């Protein structure tokens, strides 16, 4: 009897003395993401590092498929009230997430959890894509890229073209000359090929030249926005590409990146426009020729080109969890933004580091001198302060709108429609989507 009493007292005493160490397990933070294979490994390593660095929280990362599958998983989980704490969503889903009422804005989370983050030390062209109209950050940028130009150095040499500058963009007129030399000299079967045509040739073309993509500051300032891509500048650009397509200075290689990339690798095209994430892929795949990178071309007479815009994904904090858990989420987000993690992420995947500090630290270490390809994109992104037009796009049903633009452009390339007609139709069809979206949320 006495013994039993003693043991009970002992257990209680132990429990009081070491509450966390003995009985409490670390709080689990769930993160659903869309990174697999090589990038998935990098993500796993980052999570492991965080878990090893402290004992209060344990982040569990789960690969949920590609971007749309991950977003769908998040949506379904939220409806079933089983949502993760963090959900990675691609950039085109930003508007849907923002209006969902299901998210805990990141700027607020960090403030509530006692972190005083100096957002001005982040890459503004990256943050601005995920800010609301008041300039507050809604989600934490994770993987961000921007399109740049790749070119076949050997072919350029053969055609007697000087290598392109890594900081000053060539003009589209010069591009016309360059591609002409390459194709008419029989050096390259085709001049230019581009991946993600809507993103690189319309969205980024508009941002760089500060041309509105949509009204209401590209949709940031109201759901009642309308597409504006049938303006003379964009129509001219597409018309130019179409005339180039007719004499092989431009070739169409497909909507995504696989087709265009393989045309560049097979040396069917001398110049290739695509995301900076292509650097790693080309390094691996190209064996028999030298290539280099350059910023995207601009129109002649553009005194000061704007920043290009990003693509990629960000992490959203979802509602419906306890404060203790959110503390862990905030700690994890802060950890991800640390120099060490950002440098690791950038070096392994090629996606941008999101803070200026990590960029400068890499620069000081001589990383960019050793990897000159990498700096082209970052310079292009940082060369100007984002305007209301170049900061990003905020459109409902953006996935559908990109599909529409893809379809209409393809009808231009195969000669079924004139550029003006195709872009007019793209605007009209997209506006129908925008009105349906507006009606849903009104």
């Amino acid at each position, binding site marked *: 009897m006495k013994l039993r009493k003693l043991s009970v007292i002992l257990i209680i005493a132990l429990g009081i003395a070491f509450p966390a160490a003995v009985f409490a397990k670390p709080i689990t933070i769930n993160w659903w993401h869309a990174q697999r294979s090589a990038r998935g490994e990098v993500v796993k390593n980052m999570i492991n590092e965080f878990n090893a660095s402290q004992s209060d929280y344990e982040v569990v990362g789960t690969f949920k498929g590609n971007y*749309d599958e991950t*977003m*769908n998983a998040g*949506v379904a989980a*939220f*409806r079933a009230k089983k949502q993760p704490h963090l959900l990675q969503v691609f950039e085109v*889903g930003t508007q*849907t997430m923002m*209006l*969902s*009422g*299901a998210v805990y804005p990141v700027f607020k989370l960090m403030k509530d959890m006692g972190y005083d983050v100096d957002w001005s030390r982040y890459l503004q062209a990256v943050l601005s894509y995920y800010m609301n109209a008041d300039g507050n950050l809604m989600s934490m940028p994770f993987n961000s890229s921007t399109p740049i130009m790749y070119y076949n150095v050997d072919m350029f040499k053969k055609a007697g073209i000087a290598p392109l500058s890594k900081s000053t963009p060539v003009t589209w007129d010069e591009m016309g000359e360059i591609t002409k030399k390459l194709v008419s000299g029989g050096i390259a079967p085709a001049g230019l090929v581009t991946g993600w045509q809507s993103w690189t040739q319309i969205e980024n073309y508009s941002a760089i030249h500060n041309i509105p993509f949509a009204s209401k500051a590209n949709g940031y300032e109201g759901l009642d926005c309308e597409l504006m891509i049938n303006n003379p500048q964009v129509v001219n650009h597409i018309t130019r590409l179409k005339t180039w397509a007719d004499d092989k200075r431009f070739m*169409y*290689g*497909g*909507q995504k990146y696989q*087709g265009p990339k*393989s*045309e560049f690798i*097979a040396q*069917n095209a001398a110049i290739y426009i695509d995301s900076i994430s292509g650097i790693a892929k080309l390094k691996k795949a190209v064996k028999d020729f030298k290539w280099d990178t350059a910023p995207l071309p601009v129109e002649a007479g553009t005194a000061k080109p704007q920043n290009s815009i990003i693509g990629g994904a960000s992490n959203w904090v979802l509602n419906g969890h306890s404060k203790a858990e959110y503390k862990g989420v905030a700690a994890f987000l802060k950890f991800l933004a640390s120099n060490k993690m950002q440098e690791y992420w950038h070096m392994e995947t090629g996606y941008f580091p999101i803070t200026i500090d990590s960029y400068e630290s890499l620069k000081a270490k001589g990383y960019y001198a050793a990897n000159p390809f990498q700096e082209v994109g970052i310079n292009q992104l940082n060369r100007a302060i984002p305007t209301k037009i170049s900061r990003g796009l905020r459109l409902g*049903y953006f*996935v*559908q709108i990109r*599909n529409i633009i*893809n*379809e*209409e452009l*393809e*009808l231009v*390339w*195969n000669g*079924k429609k004139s550029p003006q007609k195709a872009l007019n139709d793209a605007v009209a*069809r997209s506006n*129908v*989507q925008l009105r*349906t*979206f507006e*009606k*849903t*949320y009104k």
Partner: protein
Amino acid sequence: MIKRSFFKSKYLPYLLILPQMLVTLTFFYWPAIQGIIQSFLLSDPFGRQSKFVWFYNYIELFTDPLYLKSIFTTLVFSIAVASVSISLGLFIASMANRALRAKALVRTMLIWPYAVAPAISGIMWLFLLHPSYGVVALAIKKWLGVDWNPVLYGSDAMVMIVMASAWKQVSYNFVFFMAGLQAVPKSLIEAAAIDGASPFKRFWYITFPLLSPTFFFLTVMNIIYSFFETFGIIHTVTQGGPGGSTNILVYKVYQDGFVGLNLGSSSAQSVVLMSLIIVITFLQFKFVEKKVQYGG
């Protein structure tokens, strides 16, 4: 000679069909009804707000010229797939039926493609016919001088997905035709041969009428296959492009609903698709089945 079973208890039959009814109700009727309800709503994906909008989603669909084009594309596609795969299946089956040696082996080999998932079949055909790395495509371009480019030209893309979809279905049709052919009484064909009927006439007047139930069944199955199951092929090969020329209805449902998260429109499209397939099947039963000669 029709066998009938009689149950003593009045309730036993109902009890016996109950499990099947439950399965059908939960996995077919319930989602279908949900889909019909959703098609009258505009709602955000997170389900926090939905609005009843009557026929808004349907009106949007049918005022969109591209949706009507997509219906047309689907019909062209499914007719092409069904006719190619049925005729090839029938041709191969009648050839294999005459094989003298290794009949079983030939049959097994011919059934194999059916085990290939549509997405894999799509990838394989893409590797053959892609304009920049497809082996066959490069050969066509080089030796025949054809400007083959399914990435750019809609008709080429259509040819490619029809081939990929039909190829897979040929084995399925082959199996049924093979079984059908074996059920054709040898004595009838021999009698006709003695009377001097040519092989073609023997086929046309004896084998074909006796195969008509199989033929009819396969037409229905192939149309349904090309409407729904070819999704994987479209997804891996063309993603509906170029310029929407291979955007069949089921792919558009996926694009708008799963990727684009427009649940209302996507549900309305599913309802249209369901009605379309019901109408087509009904018409087949009404007009084609009359010509079918069932045995016995």
